[in-house]
C-alpha cells in the first residue's frame, strides 16, 4: 500500500518537474527578451538588437518584404516593356499560371501569383520576387499548346518558389538593412533611417534587376527552375514534355544573329533540353495531353497580334 502510494507520488513529482522545466525553457526564452523593470534600458536595447540581428541572409526576408521588393522590380520591368493589354488572353494566362502555382512548392505567397503579357516581339519571360510573372507576346506566339505555356509559367513559378530573385541580392546589403531594421523599435522609421534604408532598397533592386533583365540568373538557378517547372507542371496534370517541346523550338532559333531577351539571359536551349529530357525520363507516370486543352489554348491565342 505504502509502496504503491510512493510510486504514485514519484509519478506526480516527475510530471510536476516536467511541467515546471518546460515553463523554465520558455522563461529562459522570455529572459532573452526585454522584460519590464528587471533589466536596464540599455540592456533592453542590446537584447532587442540581439533578437533582431538573428536575420542575416535572403532566407530571413519576410513574405511582406519580398512582396515590396517584387512590386518595384515589377514596376522596373514594366518601365522597359509596354503591356499587351488584351483582357481575355491575360485572363487565360492567369488561369494557367494560377493553376500551376497551386501545385507548386510554394502556393501561398504574400499577395499571390499574378501574370501579365508584355507587348514585345522579343522572346522573354521574367518573374519578380513576390509572384509577379511576365511573358512576352513573342514567346506566346511560339507556344503551340497549353502544355508549353504551362511549362514556361511553371519554370517562372520555380524561380519565385526557390526565391532566386532574392538570392541575387548582395549579402552585404542585407546585413546593412537588417542592422538598421533591428535598431528601429518605433512603428515608423525616423527620416535619417528611412533615407539609409531606401538607399539599401535601391541597391537591392539594382542587384535583382541586373540579374533578371540584363545578365540572367546563374545557370544553376535556370536548371533548378527547369527541374521545378517539370515537377510543378506534372503535378498539375500537364504533360511535362511541354517544356522540352518549347526548348526544341528555341534551339532551332538560337543560331539567329542578334537575339535578345530570353536568349541573352538563359543558358543554351540545347543544354537545357538535354537536362529536361533526363528529368522527364526520371519521372514515373506522366500525364498525357488532352484535346480540350489544345482547343481552349487555340481559342485564347486566336486574337494575338
Amino acid at each position, binding site marked *: 500500500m505504502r509502496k504503491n502510494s510512493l510510486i504514485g507520488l514519484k509519478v506526480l513529482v516527475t510530471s510536476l518537474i516536467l511541467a515546471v522545466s518546460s515553463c523554465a525553457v520558455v522563461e529562459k526564452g522570455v529572459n532573452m527578451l526585454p522584460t519590464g523593470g528587471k533589466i536596464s534600458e540599455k540592456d533592453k536595447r542590446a537584447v532587442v538588437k540581439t533578437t533582431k540581428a538573428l536575420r542575416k541572409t535572403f532566407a530571413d526576408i519576410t513574405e511582406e518584404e519580398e512582396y515590396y521588393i517584387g512590386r518595384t522590380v515589377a514596376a522596373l520591368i514594366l518601365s522597359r516593356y509596354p503591356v499587351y493589354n488584351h483582357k481575355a488572353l491575360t485572363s487565360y494566362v492567369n488561369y494557367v499560371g494560377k493553376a500551376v502555382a497551386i501545385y507548386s512548392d510554394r502556393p501561398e505567397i504574400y499577395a499571390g501569383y499574378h501574370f501579365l503579357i508584355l507587348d514585345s516581339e522579343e522572346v522573354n519571360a521574367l518573374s519578380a520576387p513576390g509572384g509577379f510573372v511576365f511573358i512576352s507576346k513573342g514567346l506566346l506566339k511560339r507556344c503551340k499548346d497549353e502544355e508549353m505555356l504551362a511549362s514556361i509559367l511553371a519554370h517562372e513559378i520555380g524561380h519565385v518558389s526557390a526565391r532566386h530573385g532574392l538570392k541575387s541580392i548582395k549579402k552585404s546589403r542585407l546585413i546593412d538593412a537588417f542592422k538598421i531594421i533591428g535598431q528601429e523599435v518605433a512603428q515608423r522609421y525616423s527620416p535619417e533611417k528611412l533615407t539609409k534604408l531606401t538607399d539599401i532598397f535601391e541597391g537591392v533592386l539594382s542587384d535583382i534587376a541586373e540579374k533578371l533583365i540584363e545578365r540572367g540568373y546563374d545557370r544553376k538557378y535556370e536548371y533548378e527552375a527547369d527541374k521545378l517547372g517539370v515537377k510543378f507542371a506534372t503535378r498539375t496534370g500537364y504533360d511535362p514534355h511541354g517544356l522540352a517541346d518549347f526548348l526544341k523550338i528555341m534551339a532551332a532559333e538560337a543560331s539567329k544573329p542578334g537575339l535578345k531577351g530570353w536568349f541573352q539571359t538563359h543558358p543554351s536551349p540545347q543544354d537545357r533540353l538535354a537536362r529536361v529530357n533526363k528529368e522527364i525520363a526520371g519521372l514515373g507516370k506522366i500525364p498525357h495531353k*488532352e484535346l480540350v486543352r489544345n482547343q481552349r489554348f487555340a481559342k485564347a491565342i486566336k486574337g494575338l497580334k
Partner: protein
Amino acid sequence: MRKKGRYFWIALIILSITSFLLAETLIVKVKTTYLRKEPLFYSQTMAALQAGQTLEKISSQGSWLKVKTSSGLIGWVHASAVQQKKFTLLALNKTVKTKTSAEEVALAAKGFNKQVEDKYRARHKNLSYAWVERMLRFRLTPDQIKAFLKEGKLAEFGGGQ
C-alpha cells in the same frame, strides 16, 4: 490504493495542461488566405485569414494543416501560408504579453515596407506602379479555378499527381 489513484489523476491533469500550453500555435504570414472546408485550394472557404492572425494546429495531411481559429472555427490552411509561433507560453504571462519573438518582429510590417516604397517612389516619380496594381486586382475564386481544372482534365480531374 485510493491515494495512489488520486496521484495518477493529478499527474495526468498536470501533463495534459502542460501539453495544451505547448500546443503548436501558427501565425498567418501572407496578406490574406482562407480557412477551407477541405485540404484543397478550390475547396469552399469558411473564413478569410489576415497576416498576423494566430491559429492552433490540430493535425496535418501532406502540405495541409487542420487548424482552429480563435473564434473556434475548424478548417484547413496550406502550410506555405503560415509559420510556427515560438514561445507559446508567453501569452499566459501578463507581464510579457506584449513582448515579441524574433519571428513576430519580422512579421510586424518592418523592413522593406510601404514607408520605404513611398520614399523610393518620391525619388523616382516617373516610375509607374499602375500596372502592378492592376495585376494584383486579378483574382480567381475557388469555383473558377475548379471549373478551369475540371474542363482541362487537370489535377484531381485528370492526370495530376
